[in-house]
């Protein structure tokens, strides 16, 4: 099962995706974060803004993902996790984080990134280490936004980050609830 996702992801990355220079991408993201830090000066606020930006990206990204991968519905949350890591991350960032720590009820999982293209050559200033800046928090927003568009409300947050001196970079994703189709406001 996992094998088919992996081959699907590799195949899409090789054939159907346009690529850009990785350094350009890293430097662009870096300057976004540096500018936010300068503007807000409060690192928890920067985290929130990064997450909001990610949310906006995610709501649009899911369409692109579904169009390119043409996959059907996932049977359960576990499958969602595999899909996100092997196909989603592979398609957009060319990395495959490992899915670990799946909870007993299958409603939570962790993504462990062994390399993070957003954070190449980055060193956090000392104040950011004291004040809990999650540099790649945009990824959490993307996860939340894209999964919300497919009827899953999730909570995504960083647990550890190599930029802050931890051993691994880990994102925890928790399913809050499945969203029911709601009648748009104004219609009865």
């Amino acid at each position: 099962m996992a094998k088919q996702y992996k081959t699907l992801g590799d195949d899409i990355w090789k054939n159907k995706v346009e690529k850009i220079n990785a350094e350009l991408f890293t430097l662009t993201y870096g300057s976004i974060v540096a500018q936010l830090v300068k503007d807000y000066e409060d690192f928890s606020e920067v985290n929130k803004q990064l997450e909001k930006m990610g949310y906006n990206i995610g709501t649009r990204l899911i369409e692109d993902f579904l169009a390119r991968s043409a996959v059907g519905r996932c049977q359960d949350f576990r499958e969602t996790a595999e899909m996100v890591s092997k196909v989603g991350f592979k398609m957009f960032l060319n990395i495959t984080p490992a899915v670990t720590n799946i909870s007993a009820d299958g409603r939570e999982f962790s993504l462990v990134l062994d390399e993070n293209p957003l954070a190449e050559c980055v060193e956090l200033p000392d104040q950011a280490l004291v004040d809990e800046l999650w540099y790649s928090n945009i990824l959490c927003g993307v996860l939340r936004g894209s999964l919300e568009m497919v009827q899953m409300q999730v909570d995504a947050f960083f647990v550890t980050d190599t930029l802050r001196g931890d051993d691994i970079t880990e994102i925890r994703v928790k399913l809050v609830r499945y969203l029911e189709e709601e009648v748009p406001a104004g219609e009865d």
Partner: protein
Amino acid sequence: MNATHSSSSSGGSGIGSGPLGYGNAPTCYFVMIGTKDNPIYEAEFIAVNTARSSSGGATIPEAKKEEFRHLNQFIAHSALDMVEDIQWSTNQMYLKSIDKFNERFISAYLTAGNIKLLLLHDAKSEDAIRNFFNDCYELYIKTLLNPFYEPNSIISSAAFDTKVRLSAKRYL
């Protein structure tokens, strides 16, 4: 250019005073100077590789060390003029030995962004110094890639410092 001289000499009272017979201490002084003649990084290395037996073997007293530091800055700054002269005559980045002060040499390396890497040293092989400069240049480029680093500001990263010292141990 005169302004920089006064800034370094105001810090130390002993520039002109003490005797210049300190040359037994085989130290190298490395400084990176930004585009506005501002030092962005400096370090001193005790060169273990040069087999110089210092006379007396006594450790240099602290007061003299301060003197050396100020004198080193002074020498480096006065060498900046030479760098600016020579940089127009060659298209090499490594400018080799550009100046001499008593028995000490000053080598320079000019980066594409007009950052000057200066090394004060006793007689040493040109290749070793060239390798050291190349290493430092690559470390500097990595620092520039860090979005939180302001170009032309002081490099305070401990990781950068460790790596420069490691490179110095290897080549100098």
